[in-house]
């Protein structure tokens, strides 16, 4: 599968907790929606600082709040982050000290926290945080890149804005990329539990052991039950009329197109949303995430993925504040009109009958150059859209 002459390393950053990153961000981390505008103002003033709008963090029941806590802690611990400044309002559910403790459970990297209600409002918080962030960014700028093995990569996979070319071209190319990364000793994450529905038994057959097999069936059953409690049946009306018009006949067929992006290797483990994937965990793993793109990607990045490969038939602009998202399409027309947002054209699988495996060699080269610092289209546009999985409505 992997050519012996294929490069097996890239230039990245070694973190004090032992993990390897491919970016060197200062993360201004809003503990809740109420701290998000302040966090954004801080990040805008410091070169190298990033932030995002956290729409959750308050008015949440414990199970729902846990997803937010895991994304917050996981983002701070993500190896693409040099250090983190937590910005909390003060009265939210995701209390500043809880967030700090959750981060400390995952990493020993630089960490500072400020509470807006203690500092005396936004302007005082911004002034203090900008000075702290500036000093942290100066330290971060002195980090020296070193050679990192591909075996330390955790690759996140995602698909969104799908069309028939996703299952035919883009996802098979991503699947072959996953096989390459895994053959080189690395880790790949298959996500989007809602898109396993109908193919869960096929997926479960690929489990490394009985426990993983049962977990795959369980996460699908739990997701369906969640919808059922709200009076919805996700199997009904699926595939959608649009899917059928596009040529998808059954739910199995639709889901098979999606799970193709995990490649062909056995599934080693199943992780809950946003939970940290140990550095010792190699091979293909599943994370229980929604099909919703920004929240699924956030869960995998919280798990420790340094980079995401994202297939889109229609073309999507989505990025992330902390990790490069490499966009790939199998649709030649979409590539022609959406090239500003897409990094890799896989349409020759369809137009020229090229083999997904051959194209995945080119995608692998692009992935390594992105790992070594090449900016993706979403990074060049400064896109940071992020969401967190929800268990239920706001309180």
């Amino acid at each position, binding site marked *: 599968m992997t050519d012996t002459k294929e490069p097996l390393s890239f230039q990245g950053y070694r973190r004090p907790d032992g993990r390897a990153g491919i970016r060197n961000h200062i993360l201004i981390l809003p503990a809740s929606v109420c701290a998000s505008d302040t966090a954004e103002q801080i990040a805008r003033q410091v070169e190298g600082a990033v932030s995002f709008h956290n729409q959750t963090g308050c008015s949440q029941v414990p199970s729902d709040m846990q997803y937010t806590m895991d994304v917050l802690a996981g983002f701070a611990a993500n190896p693409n982050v040099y250090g983190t400044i937590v910005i909390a309002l003060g009265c939210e559910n995701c209390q500043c000290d809880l967030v700090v403790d959750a981060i400390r459970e995952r990493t020993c990297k630089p960490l500072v926290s400020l509470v807006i209600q203690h500092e005396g409002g936004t302007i005082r918080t911004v002034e203090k945080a900008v000075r702290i962030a500036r000093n942290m960014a100066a330290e971060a700028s002195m980090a020296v890149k070193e050679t990192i093995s591909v075996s330390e990569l955790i690759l996140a996979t995602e698909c969104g804005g799908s069309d028939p070319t996703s299952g035919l071209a883009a996802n098979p190319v991503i699947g072959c990329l996953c096989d390459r990364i895994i053959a080189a000793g690395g880790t790949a994450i298959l996500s989007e539990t809602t898109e396993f529905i109908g193919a869960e038994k096929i997926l479960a057959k690929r489990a490394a052991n009985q426990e993983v097999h049962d977990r795959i069936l369980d996460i699908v059953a739990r997701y369906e039950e969640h919808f059922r409690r709200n009076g919805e049946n996700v199997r009904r009306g699926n595939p959608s009329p649009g899917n059928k018009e596009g040529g998808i006949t059954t739910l*199995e067929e639709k889901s098979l197109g999606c799970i193709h992006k995990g490649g062909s290797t056995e599934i080693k483990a199943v992780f809950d949303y946003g939970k940290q994937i140990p550095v010792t965990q190699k091979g293909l793993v599943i994370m229980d995430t929604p099909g919703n793109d920004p929240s699924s990607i956030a869960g995998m990045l919280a798990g420790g993925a340094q980079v995401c490969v994202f297939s889109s038939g229609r073309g999507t602009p989505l990025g992330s504040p902390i990790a490069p998202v490499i966009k790939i399409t199998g649709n030649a027309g979409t590539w022609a009109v959406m090239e500003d947002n897409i990094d890799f054209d896989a349409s020759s699988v369809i137009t020229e009958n090229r083999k997904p495996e051959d194209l995945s060699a080119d995608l692998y080269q692009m992935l390594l150059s992105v790992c070594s610092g090449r900016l993706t289209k979403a990074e060049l546009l400064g896109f940071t859209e992020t969401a967190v999985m929800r268990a239920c409505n706001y309180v």
Partner: protein
Amino acid sequence: MKKALLVHPADNVAVVTEEVAAGEQVEYDREGETVILTAAELVPVYHKIALRTLQKGEAVVKYGEIIGQAVCIIGKGNHVHCHNTDSFAIS
């Protein structure tokens, strides 16, 4: 010559990459070998064409996996879709 994509060698359907009219020839690649069949009816772009006759109840295979079953006999070159194929997954 119109083209179709065989996703997996075990598949008994292929996906046409452009619209194919009844009577038109379609070629696809099966592990390096070019195979030609004739479309029995119109097959829209990205829809499936039967590579051989499928008996009623027979599994329809794409991605090397069973995606449903034939609800009636499907002739070689026929359009394979909701009118003649049903899911196992709807509960």
